[in-house]
C-alpha cells in the first residue's frame, strides 16, 4: 500500500466536553478507503462520542474533520450524510412504529411527481436491498417493533448501505445478533471493504475485531492510547492497551498512552 494516499476520513485533534467531563480529548484517527478501523475501549472511553461527532450527532468543541483531504463542516446528521458518512447506531435508531421501508428512507423519502410519498417505490427498493442482506426477510408491512432483534439489525444496516455510503460507522453491529447473523455481518463487512468503503467498527468483542479490522485504535478516558495494525499486535497487547493504557512496541502511541517513567 502506498503511504501517500489521501485518507478517506481524517479526524484531527477532536475534543468535546460535557459539563466538566472531557469525553473526547485531543483524539486523532484516520481511515483509508477499503479499510476497517476498529475503535476499542471500555465503556465511557469516548469511542461512541468520537464517532457521534463524525456522524453529526454531537458538535465538537475543537479539532477538524477532513473528508478525502478537504476540511468538512459537519454540524448535524444531514451534513454527515452529504459526505457519504452513514452510521449504524448501537441503539439502531429505528422508529419502531413504522415499517421497514419507512425506516430505510427516513429523512430521504422517495417522492412522486406530485410531491407525495411514493410508498410503493420505497417498498420496492426496500425489498431489493433487504433481499441482498437477509433474503428470508418478508415482513415489509409490519412496524419494526414486531421484528426480531436480528431483523431490526438488518433494517438498520440496510439503511446505512442503501445510499451509497463511502464511510460507514458501525457501533456494536453484532451486539444483538446470533452466531449465524454475526457471520453474515462479517461477510457484509468484507464485501463493503472490497467496494472501497471505509469502515469504523466499534466493538467490545476483541475476536471480532481481529477477524475484521485492519487496524485498531484504542481509547481510554477520552484519549487515544495508540493505533496499530492488527498484524503487528497480539490480542493480549491490545487488552493491555484497553485496560492499562500501555502502548506495545508494535503500535503508534497517542496522547493517552501510559508514560513509562524512564
Amino acid at each position: 500500500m502506498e503511504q501517500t494516499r489521501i485518507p478517506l476520513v481524517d479526524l484531527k485533534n477532536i475534543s468535546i466536553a460535557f459539563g466538566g467531563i472531557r469525553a473526547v480529548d485531543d483524539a486523532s484517527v484516520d481511515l483509508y478507503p477499503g479499510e476497517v478501523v476498529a475503535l476499542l475501549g471500555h465503556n465511557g472511553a469516548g469511542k461512541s462520542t468520537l464517532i457521534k461527532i463524525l456522524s453529526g450527532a454531537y458538535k465538537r468543541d475543537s479539532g477538524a474533520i477532513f473528508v478525502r483531504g478537504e476540511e468538512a463542516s459537519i454540524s448535524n446528521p444531514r451534513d454527515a450524510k452529504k459526505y457519504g458518512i452513514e452510521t449504524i447506531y448501537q441503539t439502531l435508531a429505528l422508529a419502531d412504529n413504522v415499517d421497514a421501508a419507512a425506516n430505510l428512507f427516513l429523512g430521504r423519502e422517495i417522492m412522486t411527481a406530485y410531491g407525495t410519498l411514493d410508498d410503493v417505490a420505497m417498498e420496492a427498493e426496500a425489498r431489493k436491498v433487504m433481499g441482498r442482506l437477509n433474503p428470508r426477510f418478508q415482513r415489509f408491512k409490519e412496524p419494526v417493533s414486531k421484528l426480531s432483534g436480528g431483523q431490526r439489525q438488518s433494517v438498520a444496516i440496510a439503511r446505512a448501505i442503501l445510499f451509497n455510503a463511502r464511510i460507514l460507522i458501525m457501533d456494536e453491529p453484532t451486539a444483538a445478533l446470533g452466531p449465524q447473523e454475526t457471520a453474515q455481518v462479517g461477510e457484509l463487512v468484507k464485501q463493503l471493504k472490497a467496494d472501497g468503503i471505509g469502515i469504523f467498527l466499534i466493538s467490545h468483542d476483541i475476536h471480532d475485531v481481529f477477524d475484521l479490522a485492519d487496524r485498531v485504535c484504542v481509547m481510554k478516558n477520552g484519549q487515544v492510547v495508540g493505533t496499530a495494525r492488527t498484524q503487528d499486535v497480539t490480542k493480549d497487547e491490545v487488552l493491555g492497551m484497553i485496560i492499562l493504557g500501555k502502548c506495545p512496541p508494535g503500535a503508534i502511541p497517542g496522547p493517552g498512552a501510559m508514560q513509562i517513567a524512564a
Partner: protein
Amino acid sequence: MTDTTSNVPADRARTTELSPIGRFLKATEIDTRMLGMVGALLLIWVGLQVISSLRLGVNPFDFDSRTFLTARNLWNLSVQASAVAIMATGMVLVIVMRNIDLSVGSAEGLIGMVMGFAQVHFLVKAVGLELGNPWIWALALVIGIALGLLIGALQGFVIAYMEVPAFIVTLGGLLIWRGAAWWVTSGQTIAPLDATFQLMGGGPQGAIGATWSWVVGLVACLAVVLLLLRGRQQRKRFKFPLRPLWAETFLGTVTCGVILGAVWIANSYPWPIGIVRRYAEANGITVPEGGLFIAHGIAIPVLIAVAVGIVMTFVTNRTRFGRYVFAIGGNPEAANLAGINTRWITMKVFMIMGVLAAISAAVSSARLNSATNSLGTLDELLVIAAAVIGGTSLAGGAGTVAGAMLGALLMQSLQSGMVLLNIDTPLQNIVVGLVLVVAVWLDTLYRKRV
C-alpha cells in the same frame, strides 16, 4: 442476487390457520381496530334506538320521529359533532408526537370572540363594510385562521425551541386564551352574527340541499373507485401481491353504500314547517296539501369537517411531514439522527392545531349564532377524549385521523342520546367519563393481543 428471494421460505413465525373471518379481513386489509369502532358506534346507535323506543312504548323498527335513529336526530348529531371532530384530527398529530394541547377549547373561545367582534364591529365600523356584505364572512374567517396560526406558532415555539413541556405551555394557554376571550368585549356576548358566516354552522340555510348532496355523494363514490383502481395500478407497477378482485369490489361497494346512505339520511330530513312556509311566501310558491318537502341535505359544517378529515388524512399518510410526525412519535432520537428537523415539525403541528381550532370556532359560533367568551369550554377534553377513543396512543406514535373523527361522533352520539332520554347532566358526565376509560382499556387489551 435478488432472484434468491423467491425460493427461500419467508422469515417469520408459522402462520396459524385462518378462520373464514380471518381470511376475509386479510384479503380486504381492513383495520380490525377501525372495524371495532364502527361496531361500537352501531351498537350504541341501536341501543339508544331500542331504549328510546321502549320509553315511548313504540316498536324500535318503526323509527318513530321521537326516537334516536331518525334523520333529524342523526343530522343534528353530525352537525354537533363537527366542531370537536375538526379539532380531533389535529389532536391526533399532537398526541402522536408525544405532546398534548390543553388550550384548544380556550383558543377556540378567543378566536370565536375575535371573529365575532371582527364581523359585527371591526369590519363594519372601522373598515366600513356594509352589514351583510359577503366579504365580511371571508375576512372574519381569515382573521380567525390567522389568529389560530399565531396562537399555535407561539405555543409551538415555546414547546419546540424553548423546551417547555407541552402540558405546561398549553395549560398556561388554557388560562391565558380564556382570559383574553373575556377581554375582547369585557365579557359581552356578540350576537347575531353575519348572515353568510352563519351558514358555516348548519341549520336549514346552512345545508346544501338534496340535489347538491347527491352530487357530492356521487363525486365521493367516484373518488373512492378511482383511489381503489390507482392503488391496484401502483401495486401492479412493482408486482406486489394484489388484493383479490372480490375484496376490492366489496370494499368499494360498502364504502359507496355508506356514503350514499349518509346522503340519503341527510336528504330525508325536511325543513321545519315554519321555515318552509316563509320560504314559499318569499318565492311565491303555494304550499300543497300535506306540506312541502324541502330536504336539508348535507350540512355545511359536516362538509367542512369531512373536508378537514380528508386533508388531514392526506397530510398524515401521504406527505413527508406526516411521515416525520409519526417517526418522531415512534423514536424522537432516531428521527433526529435521520436528519429530521424535529423542532420545526413540532412547531408546525401546533400551528396546524391552531388553525383547526379557528375552523372549529367558526363552526361552533356560527351554529350558536353568537360569540360568547365561554365558547368551547371543556372542548379540549372532548377533543383529547375523541382522539384517544379513536385509537390514538398517549404514548405516541400511533393514531389515525379517521379514528379520531369516529371517536368524536361516538361521544356526540352518547351525549345526544342521553339528552334524548332526559338523563340529567351529572349522570351524562359520569357515563361519558366511564366510556372514555372503558374504551381505552379495551384498546389496551386489543393492542396486547394483536
